[in-house]
């Protein structure tokens, strides 16, 4: 009985809440309070939660969860709910957890009441309870408990239960997103968890690695082989993450298998190894490329996963093969990809997109499966168009007739959008395969008599393009189209015909003037695009056939002069000046003919998937064809493989222990002889006691790689950890090339140091302990010396080769050092030498720039182009409050250029508060602000800031798209300081991504008053694409738009507050001048932006 009553109540409650919700959808919880007086029904929930009966509480919690699931606000129940966090009833407890995680952020103080319960649960003997406690604790987004979380994570990472360790790996990401300051400590935990051998942990920790420190490739070296071997047993979601990461890793560590004359035998791995080792003995020089055994290991161990039931795993392996496998081996993925096409619609969509990109580069591999891409009438439109795209890509001389026959069916489809796409596809086939051009053209002409307007229109447009590429005698077709002209109503098609008439008016000398006559009649009723082409046609005819058309042209120009559209008025004015000679129109008049009737280059009909291969396959960025937030660039292959010994593990247990087939382990070990320091015999020994052999080889002083490894370790142990990372690396790099004599004393030093170190890093020891536990017990036999050797191995976190890459980023390094680097035989360095010269804008660059760039080191290796893509650009820091005026409190701010978390119309600002005084400051918060309506999202009050301490807080300010400064007061307990933040105009933008076509379309809408432009003289150093985008991005937060022309650079953004589009276009002209154009409705912003942009581009 009672439950029925309850449900009735609930219904009423919901109705009331719905009313509340509707009125306050944007402000959510705050406005809800207004309605709480109406909202008495919640009262019974509160009573139920506070009752003594477990069942009533549970009932109440279930209703509360119901409310949450509907997106309704239940935050005011927080005190009543949080009391039940320690309940014995596990279901009740779980529901309380759900509630807590949802609302803790809003009710931070009350949430703290629950923390002790979790701390207790973290010590529970039941691993499940420990795990869940950590899960919830880390999900409560309350900054105050960061230290508690940190401690809990560290403890859980060492837990005996792999489940708890897995949970701690998840918690790392949560803590990192709550407080990025903890990065260093978290990386330590990640490093530790990466060594974990449990399949349960592997996926989660790699995920954490990807979120927190994807650039710390060095952490992977030691775990690479283990991960490869574990991969098959990891749960499927983890497999996806690990494979993506290993793809990136492999691209930095191995050399390209795609070179000419590379040798492999893909069909049987055994043959590969046999022939390989033989080859090495006789013709090491003759073979320019042999695959690194680790590279092979990755390919071999991922291959079975193509059979996974999880489509994401299959796609991930496919992209791995696409990006890493030798060309001959890629085709094994096609069958699996085609299989995925049987799956759900959404899966098909993504897979087809990827196949479309692949099929451009490698027609051959998908051709046998051509029929799988035949379109069914039941397919969704976007699936149809993708299939069409692939079929077009696959077309060649041999199969074109089959494909065209198939296309004929499609043209008749009821789905007109698809029929139109088919016509375009026919056009593409016609241009690509010259044999069928005429057939296609006549087929398209037939379509002109189709009843459907869109089909006809599309045909006209495609025919226009085809005629342009084929400037042979096609006057018949043009005449035919002229006849159709009266019946065609789609403006794009009409315009196309008019353009054709004008362009080839000499071929149809009689018809063209007649068409113009007809147009003169209907001119006023036409659409803009048709009018423009009419004016064009008139001008062209006037030049070629002025006798017949002079009056007509005059008439049309007069009509155009008074047209409503300023575009047409502009064009008319321009044309008149150009073609009609009068006293004012000077020199241009003479060239009118050459200007208007210049031979035009034919448009290229190419796939819209042409430039998608710049993105890693299978990624979100690839799917959207724009760079998604957090996209990790796939680097190019290094020209010379970095040292491969970094992946050697002291006891090579992982290979032995985890390899699925024990028989193969020997073989996978063997090719290590690729680094020619070991003879094959030694290699065998190494399997048993790798340490001793390694040591002996290093003492033979031929192994420079080994040497540098120990040296860099030397350096880093001498300097403090943080600062050493840069300098240590570079010096190790230069020392690597130093003479052998120098290495002698060093070695002595090393042996001296070894015993000391032995006692120092406990981490290294626990590591070797773990290895000792493995089934292969060689570790026990290793001598003291060998264990020190293993330490150096595990400790030198940077392989000697990576420093050279990283160095390139550290552009502020003195030149001298750059020179020393040249000795290092890294070919791609040449690409980089110009980079330091056009260093970032010499103005204030905080030290964070260097770290920013370091974060990009992966992508930086060779792909020079993408480095400066949006929102990761350099950051300028501005002073908010000087410590003199602030009585010790100083504040600096910068724009992190990230979307503001609090409200999308706000600009995110990060403020760094530093206490420079000798006493601690309390209650730092934001006070009054002006103008009064200013919408600021303040940071939470900082209770206490110790002397010399600093804290970074983020706030959001709605500048309403104006550069008017935001004034507010920064208050401490005692004082108030008026400060103001004045944003540079470029910071009021956020990047917007669009295709080139969209860009031109949008630009077309923003002409006239909305366009501001200036011609500038560029500094010569600034003319590269890299430099330009860097300069532009340093000024304003916009996104780069892919451009097909090398001389035009386009950027797009939106204003943060109103979302108005801002388009920046830089067109390079000869002799280092350039036209800088800004199109936006906000003309004031445009002029300010223009001014700001000019400066860095003009200066060197």
């Amino acid at each position: 009985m009672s439950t029925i009553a309850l449900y009735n109540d609930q219904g009423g409650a919901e109705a009331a809440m719905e009313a509340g919700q509707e009125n306050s959808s944007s402000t959510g919880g705050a406005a809800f309070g207004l309605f709480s007086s109406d909202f008495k029904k919640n009262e019974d929930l509160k009573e139920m939660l506070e009752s003594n009966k477990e069942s009533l509480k549970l009932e109440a919690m279930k209703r509360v969860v119901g409310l949450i699931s509907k997106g309704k606000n239940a935050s005011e129940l927080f005190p009543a709910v949080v009391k039940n966090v320690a309940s014995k009833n596990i279901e009740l407890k779980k529901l309380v957890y759900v509630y807590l995680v949802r609302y803790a952020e809003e009710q931070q103080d009350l949430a703290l009441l629950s923390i002790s319960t979790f701390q207790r649960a973290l010590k529970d003997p039941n691993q499940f309870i420990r795990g869940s406690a950590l899960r919830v604790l880390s999900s409560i987004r309350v900054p105050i408990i960061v230290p508690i979380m940190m401690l809990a994570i560290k403890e859980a990472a060492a837990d005996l239960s792999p489940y708890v360790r897995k949970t701690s790996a998840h918690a790392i990401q949560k803590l990192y997103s709550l407080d990025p300051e903890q990065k260093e400590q978290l990386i330590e935990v990640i490093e530790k968890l990466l060594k974990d051998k449990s399949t349960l942990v592997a996926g989660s920790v790699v995920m954490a690695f990807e979120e927190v420190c994807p650039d710390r490739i060095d952490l992977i070296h030691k775990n690479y082989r283990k991960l490869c071997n574990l991969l098959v047993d990891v749960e499927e979601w983890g497999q996806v993450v690990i494979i993506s990461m290993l793809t990136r890793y492999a691209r930095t560590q191995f050399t390209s298998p795609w070179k000419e004359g590379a040798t492999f035998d893909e069909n049987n791995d055994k043959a590969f190894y046999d022939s390989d080792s033989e080859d090495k003995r006789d013709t090491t020089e003759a073979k320019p490329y042999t695959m690194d055994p680790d590279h092979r290991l990755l390919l071999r161990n991922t291959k079975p996963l193509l059979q996974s039931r999880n489509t994401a795993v299959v796609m991930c392996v496919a992209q791995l093969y696409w990006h890493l496998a030798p060309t001959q081996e890629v085709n094994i993925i096609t069958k699996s990809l085609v299989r995925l096409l049987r799956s759900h619609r959404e899966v098909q969509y993504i897979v087809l997109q990827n196949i479309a990109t692949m099929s451009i580069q490698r027609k051959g591999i998908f051709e046998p499966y051509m029929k799988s891409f035949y379109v069914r009438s039941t397919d969704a439109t976007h699936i149809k168009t993708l299939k069409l795209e692939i079929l077009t890509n696959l077309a060649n001389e041999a199969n074109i007739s089959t494909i065209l026959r198939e296309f004929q069916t499609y043209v008749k489809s009821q789905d007109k959008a698809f029929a139109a796409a088919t016509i375009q596809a026919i056009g593409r086939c016609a241009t690509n395969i010259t044999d069928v051009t005429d057939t296609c053209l006549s087929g398209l002409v037939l379509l002109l008599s189709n009843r459907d307007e869109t089909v006809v229109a599309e045909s006209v447009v495609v025919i226009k393009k085809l005629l342009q590429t084929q400037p042979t005698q096609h006057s018949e077709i043009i005449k035919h189209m002229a006849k159709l002209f009266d019946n065609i109503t789609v403006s794009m098609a009409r315009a196309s015909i008019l353009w054709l008439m004008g362009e080839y008016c000499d071929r149809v000398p009689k018809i063209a003037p007649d068409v113009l006559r007809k147009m003169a009649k209907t001119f006023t009723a036409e659409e803009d695009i048709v009018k423009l082409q009419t004016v064009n046609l008139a001008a062209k005819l006037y030049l070629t056939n002025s006798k017949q058309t002079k009056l007509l042209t005059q008439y049309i120009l007069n009509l155009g002069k008074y047209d409503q559209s300023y575009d047409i008025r502009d064009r008319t004015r321009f044309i008149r000046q150009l073609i009609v000679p009068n006293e004012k129109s000077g020199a241009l008049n003479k060239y009118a003919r050459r200007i208007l009737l210049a031979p035009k280059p034919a448009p290229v009909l190419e796939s819209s998937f042409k430039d998608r291969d710049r993105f890693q396959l299978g990624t979100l960025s690839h799917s959207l064809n724009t760079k998604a937030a957090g996209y990790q660039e796939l680097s190019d292959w290094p020209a010379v493989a970095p040292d491969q010994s970094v992946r050697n593990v002291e006891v090579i247990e992982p290979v032995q222990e985890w390899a699925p087939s024990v028989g193969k382990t020997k073989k996978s070990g063997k090719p290590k002889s690729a680094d020619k320091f070991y003879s094959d015999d030694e290699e065998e020994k190494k399997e048993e006691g790798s340490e001793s052999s390694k040591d002996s080889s290093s003492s033979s002083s031929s192994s420079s790689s080994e040497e540098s490894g120990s040296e860099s370790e030397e350096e880093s142990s001498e300097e403090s950890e943080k600062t050493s990372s840069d300098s240590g690396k570079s010096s190790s790099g230069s020392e690597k090339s130093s003479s052998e004599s120098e290495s002698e004393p060093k070695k002595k030093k090393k042996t001296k140091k070894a015993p000391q170190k032995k006692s120092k890093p406990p981490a290294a020891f626990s590591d070797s302990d773990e290895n000792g536990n493995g089934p292969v017990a060689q570790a026990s036999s290793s001598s003291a010396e060998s264990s020190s050797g293993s330490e150096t191995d595990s400790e030198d976190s940077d392989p000697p080769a990576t420093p050279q890459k990283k160095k390139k980023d550290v552009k502020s390094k003195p030149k001298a050092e750059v020179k020393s680097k040249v000795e290092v035989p890294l070919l791609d360095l040449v690409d980089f030498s110009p980079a330091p010269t056009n260093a970032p804008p010499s103005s204030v660059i905080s030290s964070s720039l260097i770290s920013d760039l370091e974060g990009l080191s992966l992508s930086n290796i060779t792909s020079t182009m993408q480095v400066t893509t949006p929102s990761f650009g350099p950051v300028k820091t501005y002073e908010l409050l000087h410590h003199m005026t602030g009585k010790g409190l100083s504040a600096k701010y910068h724009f992190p250029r990230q979307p503001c978390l609090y409200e999308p119309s706000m600009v995110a600002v990060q403020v760094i508060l530093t206490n420079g005084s000798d006493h601690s400051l309390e209650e730092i918060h934001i006070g009054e602000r002006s103008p009064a309506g200013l919408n600021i999202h303040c940071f939470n009050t900082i209770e206490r800031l110790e002397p010399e301490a600093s804290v970074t807080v983020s706030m959001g300010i709605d500048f309403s798209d104006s550069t008017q400064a935001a004034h507010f007061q920064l208050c401490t307990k005692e004082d108030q300081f008026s400060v103001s933040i004045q944003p540079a105009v470029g910071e009021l933008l956020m990047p917007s991504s669009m295709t080139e076509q969209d860009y031109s379309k949008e630009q077309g809408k923003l002409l006239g008053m909305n366009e501001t432009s200036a011609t500038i003289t560029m500094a010569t150093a600034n003319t590269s694409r890299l430099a330009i985008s860097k300069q532009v991005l340093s000024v304003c937060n916009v996104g780069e738009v892919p451009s097909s022309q090398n001389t035009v650079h386009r950027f797009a953004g939106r204003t943060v507050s109103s979302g108005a589009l801002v388009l920046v276009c830089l067109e390079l002209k000869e002799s280092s001048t350039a036209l800088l154009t800004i199109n936006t409705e906000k003309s004031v912003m445009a002029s300010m932006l223009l001014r700001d942009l000019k400066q860095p581009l003009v200066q060197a």
Partner: protein
Amino acid sequence: MIHSLFLINSSGDIFLEKHWKSVVSRSVCDYFFEAQERATEPENVPPVIPTPHHYLISVLRHRIYFVAVIQSEVPPLFVIEFLHRVVDTFQDYFGVCTEAAIKDNVVVVYELLEEMLDNGFPLATESNILKELIKPPTILRTMVNTITGSTNVGEQLPTGQLSVVPWRRTGVKYTNNEAYFDVVEEIDAIIDKSGYGSEQTRSTITAEIQGVIDACVKLTGMPDLTLSFMNPRLLDDVSFHPCVRFKRWEAERILSFIPPDGNFRLLSYHVSSQNLVAIPVYVKHNISFREGSSQGRFDLTLGPKQTMGKSVEAVLVSSQLPRGVLTANLNPSQGTYTFDPVTKMLTWDVGKINPQKLPSLKGTMSLQAGASKPDENPSINIQLKIQQMAISGLKVNRLDMYGEKYKPFKGIKYMTKAGKFQVRT
């Protein structure tokens, strides 16, 4: 990874939301609605939609959109696959995955979603593990729970989670030990206009066979099964449930596995394309519109072709007629037909094909007055079932069990269906 999930019904209401990180306002779905408006059909909504700060990845199942909110780069298939897994789980738990079922079980749904993702990363998606964590709601259990106050939520870490066979729960006990395997094959085909021609290759544009083996295993303890085929060479491309030992398949073409408890899909496969695909039915059709007249003729006859003596059942013919068609006045020789004047969808539920008396559907269609003759002819989609036969000829040789002492009851069933079977006219 996955930030939030919104469930949207066909009328555009968000009826459930769940957040794994900080709350994302439901206004983000406006971008989805915008895309939905632009799409003419529900299926045409693009699966990936970019918005200024987020990315929306959606799947459509059972007329519910499952919209996941993403904030940064993640493989889109990862999210899509996960969403489908969510739907499968709901279906597994509630029997159906409808708005009503989800709303009725909102607490279980929430508990499930909580377990399936942690901070947006999949945690437990294996049905056997989930069922140990959260017991599926049954009427009996709900009643017992309300009386005794016990709960649906497990208190221990699921045993599978830590074992080497995470897909199987331990301590399984049955009084009747049984293992059933269904071999289901589907024919995907596009048949050209001359669908009734005697030369099969000429009229078949493309035809291929895809198959799955679905299993229902209820066996006590930790059984280790092997399943072998008479003709494993037929299988061209396979994908396995994680329980199948890949090495064994590579070497011996034997499926060796410790099965999960309950229903699961053991294997899906593609039959190598060298083998000619037997097309079980033929279609004689004559659909025509005369120029200038507002009438059209519709004439369709079905007949069995290569069925190896088995009867063709549950035949359903559907066809999207041209937009100009107003009504269809048809006369079926058997079964019933419906014509939806709004969607112009003609469906004819034929039932079983009797080779002696071939089913046919004849009559006229009337066009909108003044409408011109449609350019295109509608294509015909056919569904059918043939029991006790796998059209590729695949046969299971034997099923053996190791590791347990009892003798299980084993059963194997074959079936052939039409997959995407389309006849162009």
